[in-house]
């Protein structure tokens, strides 16, 4: 479901900021309650809006800002693996929610496998993994920032000046890249964007 404001042109999102009603995210957030504590991993950059949203719940949020860290480390001689760039979450940490946002479009399959294999150690039965992928031929050259406004609304911002070709994987491919997870909810929006909510078994 896309709000009327969203504009698409030449096979890619052509607007720096758009409001969305993300259905899979809505499913995820509708399950949150204030009676328990949540442990959340946000692979995106720090967002005041997201912190503000989660502040209504008793939770611990790990923020990775993964894409920036990955880019900063690509020039290093030893070329560290993606998993080695992640924080030490500490013994006993189990994530209830992992938010990958649109990073799947920007991480190579081998890196993704490496990441998921590592993160699986911090998952427990029922852990949820959320990500969106673009069905467009071209995507912005860098990931967007996603700001949670409330349980139903999200603002998508991407100020990337250039585009790149999307690898265009579909759900079936991601299922193979996510061992231990199974598809819980998936939505393909009219814009071509695909929302995916996977559950750890």
């Amino acid at each position: 479901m896309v709000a009327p404001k969203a504009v698409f042109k030449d096979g890619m999102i052509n607007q720096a900021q758009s409001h969305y009603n993300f259905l899979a995210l809505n499913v995820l957030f509708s399950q949150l309650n204030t009676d328990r504590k949540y442990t959340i991993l946000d692979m995106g950059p720090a967002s005041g809006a997201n912190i503000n949203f989660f502040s209504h719940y008793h939770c611990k949020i790990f923020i990775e800002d993964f894409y920036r860290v990955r880019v900063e480390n690509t020039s290093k001689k030893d070329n560290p693996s993606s998993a080695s760039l992640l924080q030490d979450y500490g013994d006993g940490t189990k994530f209830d929610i992992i938010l990958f946002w649109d990073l799947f479009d920007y991480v190579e399959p081998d890196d993704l496998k490496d990441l998921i294999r590592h993160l699986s150690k911090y998952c427990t039965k029922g852990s949820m993994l959320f990500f969106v992928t673009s069905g467009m031929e071209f995507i912005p050259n860098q990931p967007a920032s996603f700001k949670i406004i409330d349980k139903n609304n999200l603002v998508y911002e991407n100020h990337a000046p250039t585009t790149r070709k999307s690898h265009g994987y579909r759900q079936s491919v991601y299922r193979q890249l996510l061992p231990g997870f199974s598809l819980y909810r998936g939505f393909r929006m009219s814009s071509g964007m695909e929302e995916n909510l996977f559950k750890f078994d």
Partner: protein
Amino acid sequence: MWKKPFNEQRAVESTPAPTQREESKSTQALIGPSITITGGLSGEEDVIIQGHVEGTVNFKKHSVTVGTHGRIKADIFAKEICVEGKLDGDLHGETRVIIRESGQVSGNILAPRVVMEDGCRFRGSVEMDPSNAASSSNEHKKTMSNLPPMAREVLKQQSTPEMEEKKVMNKN
């Protein structure tokens, strides 16, 4: 509820120059950009750190501001913490932690309330308990409701919960 420098003054300054901030916070101690401190730093007044500190910063009853020039490699314990510079360490804020747009933090935050401005860089964990924030907020509302309307208006301008409580006691 909060001290004026943290929300009202800063809210209108997009990228305030250090000199402006120093003027507006004349009651706060200032650790200048050329100062390097290794070891423990503690005190009984608010502080702005524009220099380098490595060790532990302990101002449990006061606010700590890491200025745009501040470079900290330490855990900070304070009532309120505001970061505009670079910090590598954990932040323990009794009431609130703010990471400004220019702030770059690598570490963990433990506070009832956390504010992150768009554009800030943060990597680590944030642990929040809304019940703590609510109890702190309710305490403040209760104190305010006991005051006459004029006093409430005056206190809204610039005060901390502690100051308000003292004023109520003095009035009685």
